[in-house]
């Protein structure tokens, strides 16, 4: 029997209590997710807290189990009995990886297959997506835990190390954000939407993987704890820097993936901005440019995914704005400017430059009738139930969120009813979204005279348009109570 198997057996014997607990959590996870995917009609409006809770507990169980198995032969320190025994480092590492594979990945895969089958999505074609989910869970949850386990002596130190890294990352990210942008409304790093963010997500995840692999190999090969910890810190810094990658680099990837000649003729025409009389205190000042699209091919729509703008005055102060609001083509494009900058620029003639990153897409819509299950593209199933004036929609989908965002349309003056539009994209860069369960559920609703629709947008082209104009910002608006 190879040394790896021998160590694996020893670990399984040593950690049988922990393994039993994680197995129980796995069963609870399966049960809760099967239940969450098929709620009773009265449960449609309540998200399953139990499913969420079991996911969190399962992840905690994995962290503990991985830490415990690695710490059976802890790498830092100079008192462990095993360091002067004939352990081969490759065999030891293989034993630990085998343990994770056998007691974390394999049970999760089985759990996912059971959840998928129970939701009516059992199909061999789903296997590659399930393997992708295993890959992402390993990459995002298990590999960092493994790497942190390799540079710590016990679970308490692992938790402290993780807290230290997260705290350091937050302050580094916040500091960089303040340095680069000066101001962002939410106070958090803006990562961007799925379509815009996938190149960055890929880089971040690959950096995480590279860092974790480096730390683990360094430790198992030569027990270079200080160097491995440093590698972890450097990886984290690189990941944070990745979050601040120039948007142009990321958008170039999208423009390469989505390239369609018919987008060439699409243009954007914007007029001088308007500013509300009163604005909320905490959000800076919204500056709305009435804009329209021209030459959009029939049957297709254009949508601003991300917009970035610079306001230049005599003092060359910059504002920075992001929007994902779908008001174009007949609405306006909104930018946010921090209050101090606005105060300095108001009333002056200033140069305004904006770059709009736009998708050309083909939309399709499905009504969701009340009281029955509607089958939708991508395996989605949606149920609408009405109780009094309240309309509730519940959707279930394999491998991806049933929808990405909801647009609420209020009733208009012409007597048209309001609507809640569940918007999804036909394209996802990833075979499956990141989650533990392959069955995704979501619910929403609206009140009164309101129809619920499902809208799928198929991205056809990604392109940019630049706007240059001289503007005069209106006086500083009052703070809304």
């Amino acid at each position, binding site marked *: *029997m190879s*040394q790896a198997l*021998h160590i694996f057996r*020893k670990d399984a014997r*040593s950690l049988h209590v922990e393994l039993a607990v994680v197995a129980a959590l796995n069963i609870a996870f399966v049960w809760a997710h099967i239940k969450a995917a098929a709620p009773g009609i009265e449960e449609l409006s309540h998200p399953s807290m139990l499913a969420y809770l079991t996911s969190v507990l399962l992840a905690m169980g994995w962290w503990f189990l991985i830490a415990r198995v690695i710490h*059976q032969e802890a790498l830092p*320190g*100079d*008192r*462990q*009995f095993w*360091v*002067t*025994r*004939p*352990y*081969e*480092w490759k065999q030891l590492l293989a034993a630990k990886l085998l343990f994770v594979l056998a007691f974390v990945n394999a049970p999760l895969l089985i759990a996912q297959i059971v959840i998928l089958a129970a939701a009516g999505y059992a199909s061999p074609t789903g296997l590659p997506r399930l393997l992708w989910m295993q890959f992402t869970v390993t990459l995002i949850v298990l590999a960092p835990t493994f790497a942190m386990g390799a540079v710590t002596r016990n679970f308490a130190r692992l938790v402290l190390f993780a807290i230290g890294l997260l705290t350091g990352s937050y302050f580094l990210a916040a500091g960089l954000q303040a340095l680069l942008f000066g101001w962002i409304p939410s106070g958090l790093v803006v990562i961007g939407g799925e379509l815009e963010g996938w190149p960055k997500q890929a880089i971040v995840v690959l950096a995480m993987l590279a860092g974790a692999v480096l730390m683990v190999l360094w430790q198992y090969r030569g027990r270079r704890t200080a160097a491995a910890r440093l590698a972890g810190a450097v990886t984290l810094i690189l990941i944070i820097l990745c979050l601040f990658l120039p948007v142009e680099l990321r958008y170039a990837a999208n423009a390469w993936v989505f390239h369609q000649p018919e987008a060439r003729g699409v243009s954007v025409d914007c007029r001088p901005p308007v500013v509300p009389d009163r604005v909320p205190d905490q959000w800076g000042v919204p500056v709305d440019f009435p804009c329209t699209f021209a030459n959009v091919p029939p049957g297709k729509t254009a949508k601003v995914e991300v917009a970035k703008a610079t306001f230049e005055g005599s003092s060359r102060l910059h504002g920075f704005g992001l929007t994902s609001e779908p008001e174009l083509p007949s609405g306006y494009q909104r930018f946010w400017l921090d209050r101090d900058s606005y105060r300095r620029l108001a009333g002056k003639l200033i140069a305004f430059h904006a770059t709009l990153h736009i998708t050309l897409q083909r939309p399709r819509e499905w009504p969701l009738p009340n009281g029955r299950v509607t089958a939708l593209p991508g395996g989605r199933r949606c149920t609408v139930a009405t109780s009094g004036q309240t309309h509730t929609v519940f959707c279930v989908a394999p491998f991806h969120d049933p929808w990405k965002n909801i647009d609420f349309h209020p009733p208009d003056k012409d007597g048209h009813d309001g609507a809640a539009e569940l918007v999804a994209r036909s394209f996802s860069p990833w075979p499956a979204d990141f989650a533990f369960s392959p069955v995704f559920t979501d619910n929403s609703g609206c009140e009164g005279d309101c129809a619920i629709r499902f809208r799928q947008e198929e991205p056809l082209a990604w392109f940019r348009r630049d706007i240059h104009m001289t503007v005069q910002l209106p006086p500083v608006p009052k703070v809304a109570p």
Partner: protein
Amino acid sequence: MSEDPIRISGLTKKFRWTPVLKGLDLAVPRGALFALVGPNGVGKTTTIKILMNILRPTSGGAEILGIDSHRLAGRDFARIGYVSENQELPDWMTVDYLLSYLRPFYPAWDADLAAQLVSQFNLPGNRKLKHLSRGMRMKAALASSLAYRPELVVLDEPFTGLDPLARDEFIEGLLERSENTTIFISSHDLADIETFASHIAYLDDGRIQFSEELVALSDRFREIEITFDAAPPLPADWPAAWLHPESSAALIRFTDSRYEEERTMAEIRARFPDARNVTATPLPLRTIFVTVAKKAKRAVAA
């Protein structure tokens, strides 16, 4: 197979800015029962951890069984047994499971010998290590380190905290199986090792102060007492090997650290022609070390 199992040359180790080892040189001959002694905190454990590739040296190096210590890994340890006072054992294992777990790691593992050691040490096979006394744990560690007949056994302060009975059993078990094995043992307590060590090295102030066979060491140290009718003043050409001289009205006493009967007596007669009587008394090992330690401290102070 004639080369020394342990060779250390110019070994230095600093912990941050604090030097612990300052150019340590040492050779342990094959088959020796070699004791590294010295006060607490002088670097005995650090030396052993460098030998075992648990710590890395700042400079210099060491060879274990012909292998650079910093390359010592994996199967090399199948030829070495290591037991340390502060070693963390897998507490959840029973004694029997520890031995059966370690067995596949060692091609030369002798199951009969392991059983014999368990029996000799009175180890309760089905009891978990965490439920054993310190002495029992050390004996379990030793049993697990002797069962494959290692070429080299390295023991770091193995007797600390052991009661006399456990210590004797430990030593007995060790000595009975020391044939064809080199044993390197560190201790701060001479009484632990003077009864069985064949070689001894004294580590102090980051360096080996001396290293030699125990018999030779005992032979070359003598307490010399010279009686006079009236003791003369100490001569100006006092030999450096005559340590800690004391003088009273009719007596001069010192420790000769290079005693050879004929030569020493001739030197005494040359310096003290009026001596009435000269006696040379062998010294216990403890006194030899105290003498050497005092000399080293004076040298450092000077």
